[in-house]
Structures are given as structure tokens and as C-alpha cells.
């Protein structure tokens, strides 16, 4: 295309035709009776629709008619006329309902439903016919409502004039819901329709929701009270859960969503909140006892819903405390206490995890409860925990694989964490550990070391210092023995036929043992001398003290019926070797020759002559050893095994020993209290009683009664470390 041709667009043909529009000669006018005729046509149609009859004129024609009337500025009138027509019809409908009030509420609902459906469909048809009106006039006029809304408005107004109709309908709805709650199946579509009707009419909140909620409250109040007395807690919880989900579903199915919240609240309040204290009181302990994880979880969720977690937690804590306390106080079953506590702990942990969603505050309550009950019986639990571990760590126990032992230790350590008297635990643990190490009874040195490192992580290195020292001693002793065996001392100077092994213990690391004297057989005496000589040459400046009570021997005995090897304690060996020379000895003889302390000697003899394995014969026979008894070598001794272990009675834990350990701990504590008080007073110079007590309690890590602390303060006053202030006896002064 050349640029010059662009100015005039071509119009297609060569010769252009002209279209001429001429105005009408006379202005067209509406027929005279246009308005009346059209309206009557329309009115007829409306009445046909209302009367559910066929509309004789085609809908298109009617639509055109409406459009015509609107075009000719008759929309206003048309709207009013239509409104009157509908009004009259609706009035009749409502009045018809009014006459059916005597029908029972549900049957009545059906009528209302029919009326409502008719109304809707009719109004829709009418709107289609009058669509033009609806789209133009109604949109342009602010006061006029859309046709459908107009229908609703009219219906609403007429219903308002006949309040019984709506009241009766609502009554019907409530009846249906109640029936459904009681387990009948109802026509949900019907209810849904009517609820929508109320919603459309804008009376849902006032006319339905209010009475509905009141009804729900009443229903669940009655149900709650009745069920609480009828069924067990777990069933009740299940029921609550069911009800809540039912009501939830009800809201989704056929009620307005805005009802959900108040309705669920009603159920929560009447079924759960009202009875929760009783449920908790009656049910929680039983549920926990029976380990009903799911029911507890249910209870937890319900409590969360009604904001009663604190109450539940309090009951939970009480439960843990009282259950634990029962275990701790059950003195007859002390031996099983730790096991039972572990079992309780793992049970509770499971509940915590599965039912309580690992709620942190519950976990804290659990901890507090354990701390509280486990320390109720002073130091016994600490002692038993130490013993429990000893039982597992000792060789021959059925503790299982390394992993199992490890897991067990971890679990026990949790209990240990709750214990306040950690020093008691340490004392007993140390005593048992010493025994395991010295007797070579430890099942696994790895497990031992792992335990020590756990304790170290828990309580710091100061706590395990001595325990580690004990391990070092045993290792060092092994080295020393190796060196000894290769030395000339061992090879040349030791009496023939004797092997020996010595554990050198650092005093201070180990528990204190009473030194028990005894005169040893010459061979042993000599051996000890040789070792001592060897050791002191290697480590000059040290002092060796022999603890005979801890020694063990393996000796060979020639019985008439066979040679046996006896594994015995040193004291047992000493006594037995006296019988090398003679066959009969009186108690007094044995005592003078062995030099063993009376009580210990009697125990030793008892183990040899009255125990399972009787290498000696006591005369007269009997279980206890008396001053006048005599003993003789058992000529008839028989035994299947070649090597026999004769259990020494003193090796067993005696009450006395336990008491001693406890006393030792108490003694240590007194020193610690004194030291703490003096330390505090030394820095403060002057301090009131209360502040001193508070500070001392903070420093001291074991449980302490105020009276005990006071006694130590008094003792310090007596020893003139402190003095009461002359003006105020509640104030102490530090005396430098």
C-alpha cells in the first residue's frame, strides 16, 4: 500500500447507495388499555403460578410484557401491584399454617416445609417472569428490594404477625434434634431446609439458636448427671467424646456454622466441665493404675477443651506422689522398691508420652512428685538404689547384654537424680563397688566405668573422685603384682606352694574397714613380709596396713574321701589351718591360736560348721556357736564338686554395716554443715539467724532439717566460733 492512498477509506462498491430514514408520520401511541391489559395478563400468570397451574401465556410473552411496561415507565406501579399480589398469596399461606397449629410439631414441620419450598419455587418463577423489573427498576430504586427478597420480607412479616406458627415450627425442630440425640434417625433434609428458611428470614439467631442452645444445655445437663452416676469413667469419657463429635457433625450437616462454637461449648460445659472434678477424683487414679493410655489421653483432651488442665495436673501429681509414696513406704518390700519405682516411672513416662502429649508442665509435675516422695523416707531409697545397681553389676547377675545394662543404668540414674541425699548413695555405692573390685566380682569393668562417667556427668568430678581412685588402685595393683611375680622376691623368698595377690588400696579412696587382727599361719606371715619388703623398696615412704578381713584364700584340703579345693575367706583359712595339726579344738583354743576377735570368730566357725558346706563338725550340733562348743575335722566330708566355695557370713550385708554406713554419712554431713556455716559467717561477720539458715541451706546439697542446722549452729556457739549479738539474740557474730 502506498502512503498516499491512506486518507480516504474505500467503502466497498464503486457507486454508493444512500439509505434514507424518514421519521414516522404520527408518533406511535400505546393502546388505550395497554396497562390494564398487560397487567391482567401478568396477574393471571402470577395467580396461575401461585395456584400451581399451568401458565397459559408463554413465558417469553410475559417477559416481553414486563419489559414493555417497564419501558413505558410503569415499573413503579408494576412493582407495587406485584407486591400486593404476592402479599395476598403469602398471607393466605401463613393463615393456612395457622389453622394447622394443632398438628403435632413434626407433622407441622412438613407443612411448613412444603409452604417454604412452594414459596421459593414460586418466587423464582415470578422473578423469571419479572426479570426485567428485577434487573432495572429494583437496581435503580434504593427502597425496592429484589423480588426474591421482597417475597422473604413479606413472608417474614406475616409470620411475625402469627408468631405461633414460627414458634411451633421451632418447637418441631427442637423435637427432631432431641430425637436424633436420643438415637432415632430423623429427616435431616427437612431440618436443614427449615433451618435455612429461618436463616433466610433472618430469624435464625433469635428464634432458633437461642432456644436450641438452652435446650442443649438442659439436655446435656440431665444426661451428664444421669450418666455420671450410671456408667464408669472410661465409658463416660468415651461418651463425651462421641457427643462432641456428634454435635460437631450436626453443625456441619444442618445447622448454621455460627452455632458450632456455642453448641460445642454447651456440651463441654454440661458434660465435661461440670463433672470434671468428680471424673478426675474418681477416675484418674484408676485409669493410671490400669494403664489405660487411651482413656487418659481422652481425659487430657477433654480437660484441655474446658481449660481444666491445671486441675488435671494437680490430680496427676497427687496420684504420682501417693502411688510413689506407697512404694517407698512399703518396708516389707524394700528389696523390690527400686524395681517397682522403675516400673512406675516407665509406666508414667509412657502415659506422659502417649496420653499427655509430652506436656511440659505435666512432666515437671511428675518430676516434682518423684522428688517429693522419694525423699520421704530419708536415706533408704538412696541406699536401695545403690544396692540395686550393685546387684546388676555383680557377676552372675542376670542383667543381660551390655546394651541392656547400659539402658538399666540410665533408668536408675533418673531415680538417682531425684534423690536429695546423694552422699548416702555415694557411701553405699562406694562400699559395694569396693567389694566388687576386691573380690573380682564385677560383671563388666566397662559397665562400671560407664556408670562412673554417668555419675560424673551428673554430679561433677568431685563426686566420683574417690570412685575413680578405686579403679586406679585396682589397675595399679595389677601392675604391681606383675612386677612382683617377676621379681626375685617372688621367685626366691616366697614359701613354696604359695601364690599370692595383693591389692594395694589408697586410704581415703576406699571405705574405711575396721582393722581386725589375727595371727596368721607362718606361711602367710612370711609371704606378707616378702611382699611388704618388695613394695616398700619400690615405693619408699609408704605404710602398708593389712586388712585381713578382706582377704580370700584358696586352700587344698585332703579329706579321707577325696582332695578338695576350698575357696574361703582369710579368717576361714586361718581357722581351717589350725586343724592341720589336731583334729579337735575348743572354741577357746581356736580363739587363742587364731587371735580372731570373738564375734568374728563365731561367725567364721558358723560358716564352716553350720552352713551348707560343713568341713568342720560342731559338738554339740546346732545352728549357733556357743562358748563351750568344740569343733573337729569332718572325716566324712563329701561333695560332688572339686572346688568348693564356702560362703563367709561376714561378707553378707549386715544391718549393723548398713547402719554404720548411714552413721558415717550423717557424721560427714555434720562436718559439712559446720564448714558451710563457718564459711558463710567468715565472709559476712554478722548475720541474722534467718539469713544464715537460708544461705546454709542453699549451699548444702543434702536434705536438712532446720532443727539439725540449728543444733550445729549451737554447737558452733558452744565452741566459740560464733556468738549471739548482745543486743539481739537473733543475730550471730563471727568470732575471729
Amino acid at each position, binding site marked *: 500500500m502506498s502512503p498516499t492512498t491512506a486518507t480516504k477509506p474505500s467503502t466497498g462498491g464503486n457507486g454508493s447507495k444512500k439509505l434514507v430514514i424518514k421519521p414516522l408520520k404520527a408518533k406511535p401511541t400505546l393502546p388505550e388499555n395497554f396497562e390494564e391489559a398487560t397487567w391482567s395478563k401478568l396477574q393471571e400468570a402470577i395467580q396461575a403460578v401461585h395456584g400451581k397451574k399451568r401458565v397459559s401465556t408463554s413465558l417469553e410473552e410475559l417477559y416481553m410484557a414486563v419489559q414493555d411496561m417497564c419501558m413505558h415507565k410503569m415499573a413503579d406501579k408494576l412493582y407495587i401491584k406485584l407486591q400486593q399480589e404476592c402479599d395476598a398469596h403469602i398471607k393466605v399461606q401463613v393463615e393456612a399454617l395457622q389453622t394447622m397449629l394443632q398438628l403435632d410439631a413434626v407433622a407441622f414441620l412438613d407443612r411448613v416445609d412444603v409452604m417454604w419450598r412452594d414459596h421459593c419455587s414460586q418466587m423464582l418463577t415470578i422473578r423469571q417472569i419479572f426479570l426485567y423489573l428485577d434487573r432495572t427498576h429494583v437496581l435503580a430504586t434504593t427502597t425496592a428490594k429484589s423480588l426474591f427478597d421482597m417475597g422473604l420480607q413479606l413472608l417474614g412479616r406475616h409470620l411475625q404477625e402469627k408468631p405461633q406458627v414460627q414458634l411451633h415450627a421451632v418447637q418441631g425442630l427442637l423435637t427432631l434434634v432431641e430425637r436424633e440425640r436420643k438415637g432415632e434417625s430423623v429427616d435431616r433434609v427437612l431440618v436443614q431446609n427449615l433451618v435455612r428458611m429461618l436463616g433466610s428470614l433472618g430469624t435464625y439467631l433469635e428464634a432458633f439458636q437461642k432456644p436450641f442452645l438452652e435446650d442443649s444445655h438442659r439436655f446435656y445437663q440431665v444426661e451428664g448427671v444421669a450418666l455420671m452416676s450410671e456408667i464408669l469413667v472410661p465409658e463416660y469419657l468415651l461418651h463425651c467424646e462421641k457427643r462432641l463429635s456428634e454435635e460437631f457433625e450436626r453443625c456441619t450437616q444442618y445447622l448454621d456454622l455460627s452455632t458450632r462454637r456455642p453448641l460445642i461449648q454447651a456440651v463441654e460445659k454440661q458434660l465435661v466441665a461440670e463433672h470434671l472434678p468428680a471424673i478426675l477424683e474418681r477416675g484418674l487414679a484408676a485409669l493410671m493404675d490400669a494403664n489405660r493410655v487411651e482413656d487418659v489421653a481422652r481425659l487430657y483432651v477433654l480437660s484441655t477443651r474446658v481449660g481444666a488442665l491445671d486441675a488435671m495436673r494437680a490430680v496427676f501429681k497427687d496420684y504420682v506422689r501417693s502411688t510413689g509414696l506407697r512404694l517407698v513406704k512399703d518396708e516389707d518390700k524394700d528389696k523390690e522398691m527400686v524395681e517397682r519405682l522403675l516400673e512406675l516411672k516407665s509406666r508414667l513416662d509412657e502415659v506422659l508420652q502417649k496420653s499427655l502429649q509430652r506436656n511440659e508442665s505435666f512432666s515437671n509435675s511428675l518430676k516434682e512428685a518423684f522428688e517429693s516422695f522419694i525423699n520421704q523416707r530419708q536415706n533408704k531409697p538412696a541406699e536401695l538404689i545403690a544396692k540395686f545397681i550393685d546387684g546388676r553389676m555383680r557377676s552372675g547377675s542376670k542383667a543381660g547384654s551390655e546394651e541392656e545394662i547400659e539402658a538399666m543404668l540410665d533408668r536408675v540414674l533418673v531415680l538417682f537424680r531425684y534423690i536429695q541425699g546423694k552422699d548416702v548413695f555415694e557411701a553405699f555405692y562406694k562400699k559395694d563397688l569396693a567389694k566388687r573390685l576386691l573380690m573380682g566380682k564385677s560383671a563388666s569393668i566397662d559397665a562400671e566405668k560407664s556408670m562412673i562417667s554417668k555419675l560424673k556427668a551428673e554430679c561433677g568430678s568431685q563426686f566420683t573422685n574417690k570412685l575413680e581412685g578405686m579403679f586406679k588402685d585396682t589397675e595399679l595393683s595389677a601392675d604391681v603384682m606383675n612386677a612382683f611375680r617377676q621379681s626375685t622376691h617372688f621367685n626366691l623368698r616366697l614359701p613354696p606352694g604359695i601364690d599370692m595377690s595383693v591389692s594395694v588400696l589408697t586410704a581415703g579412696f576406699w571405705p574405711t574397714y575396721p582393722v581386725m587382727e589375727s595371727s596368721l599361719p607362718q606361711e602367710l606371715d612370711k609371704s606378707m613380709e616378702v611382699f611388704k619388703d618388695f613394695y616398700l623398696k619400690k615405693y619408699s615412704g609408704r605404710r602398708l596396713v593389712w586388712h585381713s578381713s578382706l582377704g580370700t584364700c584358696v586352700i587344698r584340703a585332703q579329706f579321707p574321701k577325696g582332695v578338695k579345693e576350698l575357696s574361703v575367706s582369710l579368717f576361714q583359712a586361718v581357722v581351717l589351718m589350725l586343724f592341720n595339726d589336731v583334729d579337735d579344738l575348743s572354741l577357746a583354743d581356736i580363739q587363742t591360736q587364731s587371735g580372731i576377735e570373738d564375734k568374728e570368730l563365731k561367725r567364721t566357725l558358723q560358716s564352716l560348721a553350720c552352713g551348707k558346706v560343713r568341713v568342720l563338725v560342731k559338738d554339740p550340733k546346732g545352728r549357733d556357736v556357743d562358748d563351750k562348743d568344740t569343733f573337729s575335722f569332718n572325716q566324712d566330708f563329701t561333695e560332688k564338686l572339686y572346688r568348693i566355695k564356702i560362703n563367709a557370713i561376714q561378707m553378707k550385708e549386715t544391718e549393723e554395716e548398713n547402719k554404720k554406713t548411714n552413721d558415717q554419712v550423717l557424721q560427714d554431713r555434720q562436718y559439712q554443715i559446720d564448714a558451710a556455716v563457718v564459711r558463710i559467717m567468715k565472709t559476712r561477720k554478722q548475720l541474722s*539467724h*534467718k539469713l544464715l539458715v537460708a544461705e546454709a541451706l542453699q549451699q548444702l546439697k543434702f536434705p536438712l532439717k*532446720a*532443727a539439725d542446722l540449728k543444733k550445729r549452729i*549451737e554447737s558452733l556457739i*558452744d565452741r566459740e566460733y560464733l*556468738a549471739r549479738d548482745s543486743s539481739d*539474740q537473733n*543475730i*550471730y557474730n563471727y568470732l575471729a
Partner: protein
Amino acid sequence: MCAPLFENEHLFRSAGGIPQSNTSNFTSILNLLSATFSSFCEIQTLDMTRESVRKRISTLEEHWQSCGLNGHSSLQALSDLKAHIRWEAMSPDQFYKFYRYVFHICKESKKKHIKLPTALAAWQLLLPGRFRLLDRWCDFIVHKGKSLLVINEDQWWQVVDFSRTIHEDLSNFDPSGAWTVLIDEFVEFVRTQHSATAM
């Protein structure tokens, strides 16, 4: 330093009226007590270090003991001279000093405490009219039996402090206060007895 202080003189009335045969002995003890009490009070009032106070008191104690006054014999002497010392008439402060003084004369020689029977007798002698719960206190001490053998200085002082500050119904007693455990136990004792009788 053995000169009696003026204000104490009227408290230790002259021994002229004593009819007993060993009047001279009585008079000498009375004079001794009177004089040493003065010095004792003087020691308390002077601004001295603790060390020197203690030294001077122990000098006094040696003095008494050389005159045969220690433990129960001192108490016997006090009891005999009751009419002349007249501690009932002392002002509270004066009595407080006297009470502390009694501890020192009744001490066992070389010990830091007085024996329980002596203490018990001393309370019964000194405290009537001053300690409303005295009978209860003595019951309690007897009730303690063998677990309580001696009374130390602190406990001794606290008894009179207790009698001076705590109401008869124990309503203002603070168990978390600095009272010695013995006093705490006493309060406990009275309260349990009270609740037992109330039931």
C-alpha cells in the same frame, strides 16, 4: 576491783541478822558474792575485747572455786542467802545480769556448762515470779530425761530471754527464729500438752 559497787550494796543486805552458828562463814560468802557480782557487772559494762572479758571472768571463776564455790555448792550458798540477796526485788536489767552471773558461779570447774540438776534447781530458785511457764519448763526438762545432761551458756541465757519476751500463750513465738533447739522443743512440748488437754 573487789570493792562492791554502791548500787549493789542494798541488794546484798548485811548479814548481821543471821542467827546460825556459822555466821562468819555466811558473812564471808555473802561478801564474796556481793563483791564478785559487782566486778562481774563492771566487766560487762567496760568496753573490752572478748578475750579480756573472758580472761577476767575466768579469774573470777578461779577465785570462787578457790573458796569452794562451784556447781551445786554455789547454788546451795545462793539458796541459803536468798533472804539477803533478794533477787526478787531486782529490776529486770539487774536481774538479767545476776542471772548470767549465776551461770558462772554454778559452772563446773574447767567446764563450759552446768549440770542439769544444778540448772533445774537454779531455775526453781531464781525464776519464780519471772517466768510464767516455769513449772512447764521444769516438767519439760525432767521429761527430757537422760537425753539432756548439761546446760550450756547459750541455753542458760535463752531461758531468761524466752521468759522476758515470749507471751505465756506462746502466741509471739517464731519457730523459725534463732531460739535454741531446746527452746523449740519446749514450745512443741507445751503445745502438744495443751492440745492434748484441750481434747
